[in-house]
């Protein structure tokens, strides 16, 4: 068991190093961006002295490396800084937005993951049948359409035509759970449709890949039913690739929401990052990017650990 613990610690260590690297990249990528907040705020007619004074006030006159370490040590203390645009504490700003994004991602994951894995298993079980082909065609169509297009299609049919769900997901901290489910249904469904195909096809492929193995033939020759072969004999050996593709898609549900949040005017991180970029509110953009990176790394790390934990060869040494 302690093997797994060392492994998790190792991965967490690596994750932290990666995050440091990413924070460097985020910071210096922002430096390269054209435009200057002081100039932007004061307008074209401002005197150079006024601009310089504001720059000094915002700390923009310091060398980049000093500012990076100020920013980074702030992060280590849990202080993400203040928004340049409205002087609010970024942590506060992010927390409510992040909660919303997380809620939406969980909502679509709860729809997408069970559907994708079940469909993948069934498609593998009835491979080559009409069912398999229908599922394949439908999932491929879903993945080929851009997500905003799916979103507008859903709005057109489920909202405009039949009026079942609102087209604007107007949620806040005091929306009740059932109300939330109703209001956020369309964005959640859009995201689910986008990620289902990938997970489903990978599940199907991972299972079918194993069906040629001698131990599957052995299970057949022992008289196991096709369903039993898929669930008991193939699935446990296909878990690693399935876990990986699921985690990749979960990460996408959180970091790839920008378009969908905009279409449905959903108050999440995606909206925030777009707004902040247009306002040149660099600290907010940096903080949001860092949150995205952390989510990505955490999910991948979890997937790694789970893949290892489900592999007896790695868990039980000789």
């Amino acid at each position, binding site marked *: 068991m302690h093997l797994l613990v060392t492994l998790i610690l190792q991965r967490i260590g690596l994750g932290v190093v990666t995050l440091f690297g990413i924070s460097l990249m985020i910071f210096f990528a922002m430096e390269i961006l054209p435009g200057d907040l002081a100039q932007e705020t004061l307008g074209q007619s401002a005197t150079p002295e006024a601009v310089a004074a504001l720059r000094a006030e915002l700390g923009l006159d310091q060398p980049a490396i000093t500012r990076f370490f100020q920013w980074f040590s702030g992060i280590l203390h849990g202080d993400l800084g203040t928004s340049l645009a409205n002087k609010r504490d970024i942590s506060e700003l992010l927390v409510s937005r992040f909660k919303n994004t997380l809620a939406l991602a969980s909502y679509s994951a709860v729809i997408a993951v069970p559907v994708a894995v079940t469909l993948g298993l069934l498609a593998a079980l009835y491979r080559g049948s009409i069912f398999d082909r229908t599922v394949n065609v439908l999932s491929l169509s879903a993945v080929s359409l851009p997500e905003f297009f799916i979103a507008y299609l859903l709005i057109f049919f489920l909202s405009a035509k039949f009026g079942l769900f609102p087209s604007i997901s107007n949620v806040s901290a005091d929306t009740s759970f059932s109300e939330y489910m109703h209001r956020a249904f369309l964005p959640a469904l859009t995201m689910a449709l986008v990620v289902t195909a990938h997970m489903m096809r990978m599940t199907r492929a991972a299972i079918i890949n194993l069906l*040629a*193995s*001698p*131990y599957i*033939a*052995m*299970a*057949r*020759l*022992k*008289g*196991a*039913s096709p369903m*039993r072969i898929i669930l*008991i*004999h193939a699935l*446990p*050996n296909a878990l690693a690739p399935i876990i990986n593709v699921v985690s990749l898609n979960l990460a996408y549900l959180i970091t790839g929401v920008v378009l969908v949040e905009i279409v449905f005017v959903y108050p999440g991180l995606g909206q925030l990052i777009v707004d902040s970029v247009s306002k040149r509110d660099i600290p907010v953009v940096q903080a949001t990017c860092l949150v995205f990176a952390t989510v990505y790394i955490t999910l991948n790390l979890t997937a790694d650990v789970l893949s290892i934990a489900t592999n*007896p*060869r790695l868990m*039980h*040494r*000789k």
Partner: protein
Amino acid sequence: MENLLSIKDLKIEGLSDGKWSEIVHGISLDVKPGEVVGLIGESGAGKSTIGLAAMGYTRDGCRISGGSVNFDGKELTKIDRKPHQDLLGRRIAYVAQSAAASFNPAHKIIDQYTEGPAIHKVMARKQAQLEAIELFETLQLPNPATIGFRYPHQVSGGQLQRAITAMAMSCKPDLIIFDEPTTALDVTTQIEVLAAIRDVVTMLNTAAIYITHDLAVVAQMADRIKVLRRGHEVEEAETKTMLNAPKEEYTKSLWAVRAFKTPAKPKITEGAYPILSVQNVTAAYGTEIVLDDVSFDIHKGRTVAVVGESGSGKSTTAKVITGLLPQKHGKVLYEGALLEASFKTRNQHHLKNIQMIFQMADTALNPRQTIGEIIQRPIEFYLHLSPKAAKERACDILNELELEPSQYLHRSPSELSGGQKQRVGIGRALAAEPQLIICDEVTSALDQLVAEGILKLLDKVQQTFGLSYMFITHDLETVRAISDEVVIMQRGKVVEQGATTSIFSPPNHPYTDLLLSSVPKMNPDWLTQLLKQRAQSTAG
């Protein structure tokens, strides 16, 4: 007595390049209750396909196109899925060639053992577990009470092979199909598994079909033997009759393979340097020592066989000599001159003079190159001949290998049979005009008749060019046929070495004796006698 299994005029088709073609052409086979029938033949004879068809099963890409398979009154070629599933595992069971690949890596052995009884509702899992432990004990598995609770990768190959036999027994079936159950094992392990299989078959009075390419093995196991070739039956007879008086020419040729022996070679010239001298070599993978103080010489024009079971370090020795794995201690001399430990720093003279032929000709030849390119490359690289001269030289070599140059020069390896590929492998080694060729299990992936052809070719080439061979093998019959001297290795150490004739005549090191006595003999009573002898010697 009624037949338990009756196969009549069975025809099976296989899918190749999108077309169905017949691979089994009307085979009939009867098995009575409690009887063991041996199916024997070379690869491509269709024996495994027939064995699976006896269970009403075909591999993907195969189908039964005619005839009938009748098991205890049920027609298996037309049976529905449910009743078929009910028969499989419960009344007909299967033991696969590679237990390591046939056990599911995700589940413990005991759970796979109890799966059959549980899904067929023969007994509860708890009860099946208790029976498994008893059966493991009968099969002489170490720690029978706990070994089942391990995962397949935690158990050795020979033990897994016994465990899979136990698994086949779990529902006390009427018929078991054994598909080459000992082919992947070392000779000493093979004996234990053979004995175990025979014990349980007798104990439960199970009928069996025993599939193998090894005559001596089938002689120990079967009451009756059927010889197959390319999907046709050659002949069938009681085991004793078949061994003593085979009727067909093909069967006789199979029997005769073991008679090949190279002629004796002249004595070693006194005072001359050996071509290769391995002196006190120790080598390791990481911290694990795999070769421990290994020394032997190879003289000009002679063949030294390096023999041992898997894990004995024979292939590692080849890696040290070729410089792929630099040794930790000791040295390797070529004609008295020190060989650099790593191939990267060796001079071209040394690289050219030591060549290698690999076990798997399939993977050792670049599939994207033609035979001509494969052979010309070392000629151009080592002998610096012009492309035109190199091509002529390649044609000479192909002629030497009995491969018509105009036909083979432009073919790719995938168009050749296993034996032809191995000939190309020999050609590539010869192209460098070496003094020493290391042959690593070059015949073990080949059928007996093809293997004999390769051995004869190697012998002819040796006499023509005065080559020395280091011949790595686990097969003592091959050693007897081709080698002048033998080096016997066990767990990275040389246990005994000497002239072939002296190694094959007692007294020997106990391990050599164990190896020699473990090679199956054509005598059907060999196994019984051997087990009796060994029991006596351990008792006494």
